[in-house]
């Protein structure tokens, strides 16, 4: 039996202010505790789609988040419940210290000082950066910045986490660390990426987008076996095959 629908996108289209179409007639449903990867080439409209999840962009069509239609009057509630992690942590971390950045969301929610402090501590612990409260963002490594950016939405206790290219600009060790931290989060996740391995590690379902249109929506394992589809999207089918095998083996090792 399927669990509750948390994201429902119905015939969504969006045009940039200059009239260029960015999204065309997108339909998408995401269920509770699901992890969905949105894959596609640069300029496919992935980030534009993501910005619709918390109403920072609003196009034509209907977007419903946790039963609430994305409209002006619901924005406050929706933004509390959908945590958006931006591609560049420099855009997300705008406060003088890590503490201020992680506390920004909870403070805007009107929480009292003690619970804000508690949430900041908990969020930083979840991303493995306890003790970084007083540091400034420009003193951190790229990987640490990305993890603080994740903490800034974890502290809001969002039910949905939306990531825009989470491992962009990270070295392999930094990527691994971040992926492990994301795997630990129990929330429903929508992850935008053009790195197939990231999608395979984090998601069980893949949505392929090109030119603003949804091309395919299928389970990750099925995608890894679809040679033609992978080739059309520029992924290496042999590498995908290898990842499929690895996923299967690890599944057998820890059932």
């Amino acid at each position, binding site marked *: 039996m399927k669990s509750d629908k948390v994201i429902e996108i119905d015939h969504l289209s969006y045009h940039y202010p200059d009239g260029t179409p960015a999204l065309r007639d997108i339909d998408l449903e995401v269920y509770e505790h699901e992890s969905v990867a949105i894959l596609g080439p640069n300029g496919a409209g992935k980030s534009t789609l993501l*910005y619709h999840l*918390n109403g*920072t962009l609003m196009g034509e069509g209907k977007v419903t988040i946790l039963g609430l239609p994305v409209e002006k009057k619901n924005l*406050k509630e929706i*933004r*509390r419940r*959908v*945590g*958006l992690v*931006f591609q*560049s942590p*420099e*855009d*997300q*971390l*705008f*406060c*003088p*210290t890590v503490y*201020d950045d992680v*506390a*920004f*969301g909870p*403070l*805007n*929610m009107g929480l009292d*000082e003690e619970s804000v*402090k508690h949430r900041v501590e908990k969020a930083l612990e979840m991303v493995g950066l306890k003790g970084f409260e*007083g540091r*400034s*963002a*420009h003193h951190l490594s790229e990987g640490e910045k990305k993890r603080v950016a994740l903490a*800034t*939405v974890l502290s*809001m206790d969002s039910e949905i986490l939306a990531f825009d290219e989470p491992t962009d600009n990270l070295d392999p060790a930094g990527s691994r660390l971040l992926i492990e931290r994301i795997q630990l989060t129990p929330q429903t996740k929508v992850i935008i990426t053009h790195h197939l391995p990231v999608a395979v590690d984090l998601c069980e379902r893949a949505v392929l987008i090109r030119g603003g249109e949804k091309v395919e929506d299928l389970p990750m394992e099925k995608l890894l076996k679809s040679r033609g589809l992978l080739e059309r999207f520029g992924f290496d089918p042999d590498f995908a095959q290898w990842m499929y095998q690895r996923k299967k083996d690890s599944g057998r090792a820890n059932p």
Partner: protein
Amino acid sequence: MKHAFFDHLSGIESPIHHLDARAKILVFFTLILVSVSSQPNSFLLFGLLAMVLISIALWARLPLAHLGREVLVILPFLFLVTISIPFMKKDAIGGGYSLGLGGLSISKSGLWILWNVIVKSSLAVFSILLLASTTSFPRLIKGMERLGSPKIFTIIISFLYRYSFILIDEMHRMKRARDSRCFGGRWFWHSKAIGHMVGWLFLRSFHRGERVYLAMLSRGYNGTMPETTAGRFGWSELLFLSLIPTFIFLRIYLR
């Protein structure tokens, strides 16, 4: 990339560093006011103020030689501004040079003005340096805010601080890109490229501003920055504040 942080000494552990920023701002500000408002011949007062500053620096375990060098940085600027004054003032002659063709004379009141500017600006710069070396920038901003500085002003400064490093990095990257395609020549021939760089820097900052605003909206920003936590104002702060009446007393009774 590495930056020169002007608050790089603020991480030292000392009783002065632990004081609430408000107490330090008030004390150093009073010291500057007292020194600026006193007569140029209050040598004893200047000497005592300098001693207070040096004792604070020693107590804060700051490297005196380093601070001294930083104060010296202002001297060339001071000299440029003031060196002509003793030659321009026309009253009691303090001394003179004979330069073959004509004589150059130095006026006494001009010399007093020169001394006045040098001693007061050195004390002021030393005070500001001590403040910046014992208080990290974020705490300084918070201190100013709690002392009643307009919120919009402190927000602008904290954004400026946060993003100046990113802007400098961006500029360095552009400069490197230009240099790798540029083969010498005088700066005049590069002026077109420099113009483009400035334009790009502006555009990029503008777009970054938009993305940062989106990130703020996503975490519930509604036009007012959340209140930050209040600091503690204990006995050590009160003790430090007792320097203020001392300064005022010295100002009134010492000539």
